[in-house]
């Protein structure tokens, strides 16, 4: 895997609705691979990889007219400045699903120029015991950019500016620690996959605004009208010790997770069987994601137009939607191997009725 590319993707600011920095990295990486590269009005990036030409003197391409969408979302969860206080501190709202408890004392970068700040909290010397036992509400937190009063702050940031976690990616050997692997990990997978040519047209779609309601994918799938779709994600892992014999959604290091059902979609059973058969034939480790909550762009893609057979492959990711999440390099590599092999083995008959 290209760790440096994932590092650039992970560290790029790209909260929902503000995916420009990620879009630029993606477009640059695709320059040599895409047969056609374009963006739509909402900001989704499409990279078309034409099907392999038929062999000399051979029959025409059996996949003609068969078009597969492979999607990963560019946006990450983050914050947006809602107001500047008299003291120069910034109040904010979450963009996407964030547990306020993970925010306390986190360094952040605010706005297009990346103004450094911290989500401040009273020092331990000044808090009473009871206070420390209570979870904080997001409305009571402020970003402190070190500005002396409202005017000083207003010269550097404004209402509506986004803020992201200031997390640098760390290579821990077998694992990687960083922000926004959901879904820059999926973006990195997709970039890797688009280096290949497949027997049919594959359109990689880097979507926007997944974290605020699967919004980019909806219009992308309508425009593309694919015959099948794969969604690449970094998904929930809760494999840390539990008190009882209960369900981890996925386990880190146990291979890519194939979704059967989540809150937004029942995966197409034919594509699920195709992925499982591919993994078994190729000797790629995999796991079935326990059918629990959570959703992906697949939730919109599979309902586009007359419906699109859709499957989801995810890299297990600990501490999703926090400033520091953790993935396994082997899961990443096996996820890429699985989807690459599944695409090479896919035929229109797999999803024919």
């Amino acid at each position, binding site marked *: 895997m290209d760790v440096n590319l994932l590092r650039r993707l992970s560290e790029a600011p790209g909260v929902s609705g503000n995916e420009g920095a990620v879009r630029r990295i993606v477009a640059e990486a695709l320059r040599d691979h895409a047969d056609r590269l374009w963006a739509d009005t909402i900001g989704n990036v499409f990279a078309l990889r034409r099907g392999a030409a038929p062999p000399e003197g051979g029959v025409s391409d059996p996949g003609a007219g068969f078009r597969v969408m492979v999607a990963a979302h560019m946006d990450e969860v983050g914050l947006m400045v809602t107001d500047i206080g008299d003291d120069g501190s910034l109040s904010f709202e979450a963009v996407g699903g964030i547990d306020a408890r993970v925010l306390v004392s986190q360094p952040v970068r605010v706005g297009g120029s990346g103004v450094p700040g911290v989500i401040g909290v009273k020092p331990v010397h000044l808090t009473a015991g009871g206070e420390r036992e209570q979870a904080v509400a997001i409305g009571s937190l402020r970003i402190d950019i070190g500005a002396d009063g409202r005017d000083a702050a207003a010269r550097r940031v404004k209402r509506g500016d986004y803020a992201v976690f200031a997390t640098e990616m760390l290579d821990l050997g077998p694992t990687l620690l960083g922000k926004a692997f959901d879904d820059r990990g999926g973006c990195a997978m997709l970039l890797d996959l688009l280096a290949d040519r497949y027997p049919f047209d594959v359109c990689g779609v880097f979507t926007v605004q997944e974290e605020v309601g699967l919004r980019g994918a909806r219009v992308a799938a309508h425009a593309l009208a694919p015959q099948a779709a794969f969604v690449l994600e970094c998904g929930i892992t809760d494999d840390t010790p539990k008190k009882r014999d209960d369900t981890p959604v996925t386990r880190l290091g146990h291979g890519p997770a194939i979704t*059967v*059902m989540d809150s937004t979609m*029942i995966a197409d059973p034919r594509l699920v069987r195709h992925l499982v058969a591919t993994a078994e034939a190729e000797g790629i480790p995999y796991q079935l994601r*326990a*059918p629990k909550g959570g959703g992906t762009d697949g939730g919109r893609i599979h*309902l586009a*137009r*007359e*419906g699109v*057979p859709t499957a989801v492959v995810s890299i297990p990711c600990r501490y999703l939607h926090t400033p520091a999440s953790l993935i396994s390099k082997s899961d990443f590599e096996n996820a890429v191997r699985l989807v690459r092999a599944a695409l090479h083995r896919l035929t229109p008959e797999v999803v024919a009725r």
Partner: protein
Amino acid sequence: MKDLIQTLAEAWGPSGHEAAVREVVLRLLEGHVDDTRVDALGNLVVRKAAAGGAAAAPKVMLAAHMDEIGVIVTHVDAEGFLRFAPVGGILTGNLIGTRVAFEDGTVGVIGSEKRDDASKAPKLDELFIDVGARERAGVRQKVGDAAAFRHGVDWSNGRPITPNHDDRIGCAVLVETLRRLAPGPNEVFGVFTVQEEIGVRGAAPSAFGVAPDMAVALDVTGTGDTPEARPMAVRLGHGPAIKVKDGGMIAHRGVRALLERRAEQAGIAVQLEVLTGGTTDAMAIQTSRAGVPTGALSIPSRYVHTPSQIVDLGDVEGAVRLLVAVLAQPLEGVVDGR
């Protein structure tokens, strides 16, 4: 009609696993429709041409969903007990002791952990499925396998009791309507949809494909006629219910009026339905493409979403007669001047 209800009720089909129901419907409609197709999500779309094959005939879509609520395995524990998540609106208060059936016929019973306060409904994560396993190695079920309430039909006082009237009774109404209907002024699409119970997901793509001029969803609704029931002006045996509104849609006034008018003309007893929660495929169809005039016709059912749902045969028969009357004539007030 009794055989039809029995046959459809015995097909296994939790949301996402509608293939067996689809096969049954196709067999029941053999020779009664002009063509059939299955779309990408698994919706079955059958078509009955207008008289003389008139190309400009208005297109009417009737939708009934094939799927039923169920459960899905999330974990097999060390002893072979299965933890599960809901598929659709499972009511946990009714689950302890309920039998569920997997696709391969394996039957399990839902058990519960010990609970400190048994007066409250159990939480889902306190429940598990026991498939009678002696050890984990003997359990065939794996993560992602779905199960439905165990099937079977009892007839009490002439009324059928099944775990899945929602919505096999709608499928039965739709099949019987298509069987009885002679070619008329309208082109009729019978759509047997998938995945209604987990968010009316099949209906929108199927409506996009059909692009109808008018649609009616066929589903069950609750009643207010049992002891100390939540007030609702729908009673079992008083005729099919023409929907005015539910939790997800307001019925198109023209469609509703057309249903009421045809019922009156044909002397069919009907009721008006206002459902405070829940919705049907009609919600998704109504907002397909540029919008579709859509109504819904409901079969009153007691104990919806439990393993024992009761309907009245007279309501079912009334629904079929009303739909045939609507489809056999022009769609006044909905599609005019065509």
